[in-house]
C-alpha cells in the first residue's frame, strides 16, 4: 500500500498547489487588466441597477470587501479570508441576495447534471471505441465517422438540435428550466418527476457530445494495445480473443482515465454553455445572468467555484486511477 500512499500524497499536494494557483489567478486576472477596475465597476453599477439605495449599499460593501485602496497583498489576504468564510458579498444584479446564496441555489443543479452525464458519456464512448477497434470492418466504418462528426458538434449545437427535435417538434420533453415553472421545490413525487423530465434533454446532449471524442480516443488506444506483444503472446498461448479484448480494454482504459482527468475542465466548459440553451438553473445560467447584469462579484465567485469543482473532479479521477492501475501499488517494490 506504500506505493499508493505515496501516489495519493503526491496528487494531494498537487491538488493543493493548483488550488492556490487558481485562487491567485481568480484574484489577479481582473486586476491585471488595463484601466482602473474600480472606476469600471462603478460605471457598470450605474447602468446595471436602478435602485439608488442598492447602489450605495453595494458600493460601500464593495469598497469594504475589496479594500481597493490598500496594497495588493492586503487585498489578497482580505480576499482569501472572505473566500474561506464563504463570503462573496452581495450580487450586483440580484441585490439584496448574496453571491453565496445565488451560487448555493445553482451549484447542485450543475453537479447533478454534468458529472453523471460526463461519466455516462465516457463509459458509452469508450465501449464503442473499443468495439470499433476490435471489430473493425463495417462497424468501425460507420461508428468512426459518426463519432468524429459528433465530437465536432459544439456542445450548444447538440443542445439546440435535441431541444428542437425532442422539445419543440415532438414535445416529449420540456424545453427549459430544471422543473416545472408552476412548481415549488419540495419532496413530492410530482416535483421529482418534473425534475426527471427536465433533466433528460440537457443530460443526453452532454452525454452525446462526450461519446464522440471518447470513442475516437479509445479506438486509437485500443488499436495500439492490440499490436502489443502481450496480445500476440496471449494468442499463441491459446487464450480466447474475447479474453484478450478484456486485457486490451483494461489497458487502453487507463490512459483514457488520465485523459478524462485532463479534459474534464474543457468538458465542463462546453456543458455550461449547454445549460444556458436549456435555461437549466445551474452555474452556466448563473454566469449568463451575471454577465448580462455586469455582476462582477457573482462572475468572480462562479468562476472560482467552477475551478474548484473541476480541480476536485480531477483529483477524484486521479484517485480512481491510482486504485485501478496496479502498477502504482507495485511501484513500492523498486
Amino acid at each position, binding site marked *: 500500500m506504500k506505493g499508493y500512499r505515496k501516489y495519493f500524497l503526491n496528487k494531494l499536494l498537487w491538488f493543493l498547489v493548483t488550488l492556490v494557483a487558481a485562487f491567485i489567478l*481568480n484574484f489577479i486576472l481582473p486586476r491585471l487588466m488595463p484601466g482602473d477596475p474600480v472606476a469600471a465597476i462603478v460605471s457598470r453599477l450605474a447602468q446595471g441597477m436602478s435602485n439608488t439605495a442598492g447602489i450605495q449599499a453595494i458600493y460601500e460593501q464593495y469598497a469594504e470587501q475589496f479594500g481597493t485602496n490598500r496594497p495588493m497583498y492586503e487585498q489578497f489576504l482580505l480576499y482569501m479570508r472572505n473566500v474561506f468564510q464563504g463570503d462573496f458579498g452581495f450580487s450586483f444584479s440580484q441585490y439584496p441576495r448574496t453571491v453565496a446564496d445565488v451560487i448555493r441555489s445553482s451549484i447542485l443543479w450543475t453537479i447533478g447534471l454534468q458529472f453523471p452525464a460526463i461519466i455516462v458519456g465516457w463509459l458509452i464512448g469508450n465501449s464503442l471505441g473499443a468495439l470499433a477497434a476490435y471489430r473493425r470492418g463495417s462497424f468501425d466504418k460507420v461508428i468512426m465517422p459518426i463519432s468524429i462528426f459528433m465530437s465536432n458538434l459544439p456542445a450548444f*449545437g447538440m443542445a439546440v438540435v435535441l431541444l428542437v427535435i425532442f422539445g419543440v417538434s415532438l414535445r416529449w420533453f420540456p424545453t427549459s428550466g430544471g422543473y416545472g415553472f408552476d412548481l415549488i421545490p419540495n419532496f413530492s413525487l410530482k416535483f421529482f418527476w418534473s425534475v426527471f423530465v427536465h433533466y433528460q434533454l440537457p443530460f443526453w446532449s452532454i452525454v452525446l457530445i462526450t461519446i464522440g471524442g471518447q470513442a475516437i480516443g479509445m479506438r486509437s488506444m485500443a488499436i495500439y494495445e492490440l499490436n502489443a506483444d502481450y496480445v500476440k503472446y496471449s494468442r499463441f498461448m491459446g487464450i480466447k480473443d474475447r479474453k484478450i479484448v478484456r486485457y486490451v480494454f483494461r489497458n487502453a482504459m487507463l490512459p483514457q482515465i488520465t485523459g478524462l482527468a485532463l479534459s474534464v475542465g474543457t468538458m465542463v*466548459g462546453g456543458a455550461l454553455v449547454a445549460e444556458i440553451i436549456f435555461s437549466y438553473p445551474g452555474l452556466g445560467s448563473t454566469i449568463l445572468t451575471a454577465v448580462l447584469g455586469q455582476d*462582477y462579484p457573482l462572475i468572480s465567485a462562479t468562476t472560482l467555484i*467552477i475551478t474548484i469543482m473541476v480541480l476536485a473532479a480531477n483529483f477524484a479521477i486521479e484517485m480512481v486511477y491510482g486504485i485501478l492501475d496496479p502498477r502504482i501499488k507495485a511501484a513500492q517494490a523498486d
Partner: protein
Amino acid sequence: MKHLLQQISRSGKFVAGFSIFATILLIVLIYPLVVPDPPLEIIGQGTFFEPGIYVNVYDSISAPHYTLNLDEAAEQRIASRFKAEDREAMRGWLVGSGMPESEIDIANTAQLLDQWFANFDPTTRLPGMTNADRNYYIRLNNSIQGLLSTEAAVIAQMNAETAVLEETGTVPQTAYVNVNQVANVRVLPLGTDNFGRDVLTQLVRATGVSLQIGFVAGIIATVIGLALGLVSGYVGGLVDDVIMFITNLFIVIPSFVLLILISFSIGQEQRGAITIAVVIGFTSWVWTARAVRSQVISLRNRDHVNLSKLSGHSIAHIIIRDILPYIASYVIMALILQISSGILAEAGLSILGLGPKTTDVPTLGLMMNWAMIYQAHILGKWWAYFPIIVTIALIAFSMNLMNTGLDQVFNPALRD
C-alpha cells in the same frame, strides 16, 4: 517532401476534410464579391422573415400580367394562407357550438369550410370566450371570406387633385407576373434574423471572421506552445521544471474559466474580434507546449542531434534544422486543432454574452447568441440557428478529418 505530400494526398480522410474546408474558405472569399452588401445592414422591418424569394408587390402590379389557367391555384392560395392554428381555432369554435369532435377533420379543407360557414355566427358569444377571442374569430371569418372571393382585386390610385380613389386596373386571380420582369426581387435563401438582417450574408461574413479568430488564436497558441515546449525540452533542468509546472497548472485549471474572467475584465467596449482571438490564443497553448516538449526531449538525445553538435553547429541551427523538421507534423496537427477549438471557444464565449462587441462584425458565436436570445429555436425559426451550427460543425469536422488523416500518415500504428 514530395513523397510525404503524395502519402498525405492518398489519405482519404485528409482529402475529404481538406475539400470541405477549402469549399468553406472559397465561399467566404467569393460570396462577398457577388453580394457586396454590408452584413449587418438591417433590410427587413420585423423579425425572422422566412427563407425565400421576396418579390416587390408594387413592381409586380405594374409588371406585365399573364393569364395562366391553373386548376389548383385557388386551392393552394387557401392552403397557404390558412394556417394550422386557424384550423385549430375553427375546431375550437365548432366544438364550442356543439358539434361532436369526431365529425371534424381539420386536415380536410373543403369539409372544414363547409362546416364553418354552416355554423359560424359573428354575433354569438360562446361560453368562456373573451372579447379578444370574439374579435379574432370575426377577423378569421373575414379573411376566409376574402380568400374565397373570386372577383378580381381592384387597383386604385388617389387622384392628387380630387383626393378621390380612381380605379386604374384590376388584377384577376388568374394573373401572373414573370419574376424576371419585376424590377425588385430579393432572394433571401436563409431569410432574415431577429433584427431583419440577411442571414446568409451575415453567415458568410461571420464564418470569415470566426475563421480569422480561429487562425489568430491558433497561431498565437501554437507559437507560444512551440516556443515554451522547445525551450523546456531542449534546455531542460530548472527552466524545464518551471515551464512544466506552469503548463501543468494551466492544464488542470479550466481555460474557459480564465477566458470568462479575462473577457469580462476587458469590458464589452474593448472586446473586438481580434482581442477575443488573442485572449483565446493566450489561454490555450498548454497542450501544444506539452506535446512539443515531450517530442523535443525524445529528440534531444538522438544521435543525429549529437552528430550535428559534433559538426560544430550552433544551438539555433540544431533547433531549426535538426529538431523542428521532426516535430513539424505534430505542430501542424496541433495548429489545426487549435484553430478549430478557437472557433468553438469564441462561440461559447459569445453565447455567455462575452463575445466580441456586437456593432462591428458578426461572428458565428454572436449570431448564435442573437438567435438564442430571440428564441429562434423555440419559435421554429430554424434558419436563424441551424445553418450556424452546421457551419461550425463542418469547420471543426473538416479540420479534424485533416488531422486524423495526417495522424494516420505520421503514426503507422493507427493505419488500417
